[in-house]
């Protein structure tokens, strides 16, 4: 009988983190990069909640996870607004097309 322990959660979190970093590194589309950021944030949330449950026992980690969710929502709202503004000016959300400012 397999008992789910801290290690299992940490493995899930590590997989999510790697997927997020890979997405951030390879996508050229601003929305794609933001999806990668969300994956990394959620892997941090899994870490926080799992460490809280198995190591600490106080509520600090779970409350921190709630704060991170709220921050992620605020950041996503602003990020999409900035992407739309960029799209209105340049008719693309490919970050490589933003090359007016360089040097």
């Amino acid at each position, binding site marked *: 009988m397999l008992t789910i322990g801290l290690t299992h959660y940490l493995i899930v*979190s590590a997989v999510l983190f790697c997927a*997020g970093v890979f997405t951030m590194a390879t996508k050229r589309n601003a929305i794609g990069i933001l999806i990668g950021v969300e994956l990394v944030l959620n892997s941090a*949330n899994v*870490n926080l909640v799992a*460490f809280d449950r198995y190591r600490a026992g106080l509520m600090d*980690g779970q409350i921190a996870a709630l*704060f991170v969710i709220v921050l992620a929502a605020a*950041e996503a709202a602003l990020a999409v607004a900035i992407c739309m503004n960029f799209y209105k000016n340049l008719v693309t959300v490919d970050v490589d097309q933003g090359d007016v*400012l360089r040097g």
Partner: protein
Amino acid sequence: MIAAASDIWAGIDIGGQLRLFSPEIALVATMLAIVTAPMLLGRGARTIGTVATLGVLAALVLVLRNFGVVAPEGQGVLTPEAGSGMLIADHLGTFFKLVLIVFLGGVTALWWMGSASTERDAPEFFILLLGSALGMALMVSTTNLLMMVIAIETASLPSYAIVGFNKRDAKGAEASLKYMVFGAISAATLIYGVSLLYGLTGGSLEIGDVARAWYAETSGANRLALGLGLIGLLVGIGFKISAVPLHFWCPDAFEGAKTEVTTWLSVASKAAGLLLLARVVHGFTVNLPITKADAGFLPYWSSVAPLAWGVGLMSIVTCTWANFAAYRQSNVKRMLAYSSIAHAGYMLMAGAVFLSPSAPDATAGMSALLTYIVIYMFMNLGAFGVVAMVGWRAGSEEMSAFTGLIRRAPLLAVPMIVCLVSLVGLPPFAGFIGKWWVLVALGRQGTLLSWVLITAAALNTLFSLYYYMRVVVQMTLRDDGRPALSIPVGGAALVNFCAVALCVLFVFVDPVKRASERYASGLFEPRPTVRVSTGDADAPALAERAP
């Protein structure tokens, strides 16, 4: 439930604790007033500007009133247990808040000179500006990792939006997209690092507990994971400081933004990041097990040296890289953006000194950093103020727009020369003093790292002479008969005030230096024992250190 809640707060002076945060509360109240004002008074730029200016003045009065006051229970406030609060009110925080709010006033003055006549979205502009100021004030008032994350995000999110404030400007849109993408990635790394640190300290978000875990950890794998968590933390803070290699957003965001916004970000965001780093480093310094009797002897090399060398090398790379990149710039605003990265590097050098087992050395580094921030504020407000006015009147911030400025607008050219010479760090201006104290602090520490840093700082000062002087030469020796510039009186007064302040501070730097020493000295006094997490033993000692 109600009875239990009142028990928790019994004996806590809530009014007294809130008073310590009255400047922040004033900023929030001003933001709310600006939300309401359009309904009652209309959206006129001058009306909203007046409301915002009054709010900034109120915050200034409140922070002056708090000067010299610390939390009655010691370090932590807004919590029943002293020493483990989410927020801290101490001298370092108050000192920074004073500088921040004075600078916010300067940026608001610059806004009145330039954008006030054409601005159509003044309420949004000021809410974003004050929101980022609030986040920066909170960044310096905490040792809790969760609060650090929230404060960094509170400072960053409005900054992304304010950089792309002009919706029809393609440059601004590109700048804010780049800033936001880098910011989101570094924030994600920071939060992941925090989650690792949380687990490896056994469930604590206090930076002091992280430091103790770092010194006590013997297992190699756990130490590696702690190191990764610390790197995540350093990435998040390094992004705010724009330390190389996390600087890519900085020149683009600074060039694409309005010049008031560039001025604001170049000083406030970096100073807040540096002092947040100081908080983290301070947690590591004061928890250093000093003697064998305390907590087992740890050699310098296995405890604090990797961190000091990490910060030190980051500062060398930051200075050198930014100075070389500034060589190639033809846009003065962008050149000053690289110059601000280089200055962040010099200030980071002072950061390497705090990671010293000796309290006097650490105090010297901290006070050098605080003095530098005050002087740097005047240099940048003056230099960017001139760039802003040339940009408004000549329509360009390219090097060519500065040709013959000494004839066309002597009241701009002279303060610009003072600010640029001061930015190089040459006498007889205050920039020299700022750099000098950093080098003295490094020299007093006298380790191998500090001599490496002194050499790097000296060489970098020589390199930087060339690109600053190029602007001076363009303004004085070249002239192609362009028409004279008409400049706003208030704007000329502002930049000339900064130039005069730089001259005066060169001669009379003592009050600033003494204040920064007094405000730094309480932080690094040696502790009799390794601090325990409740912090009760040393909390009263901190309260007595009122200057």
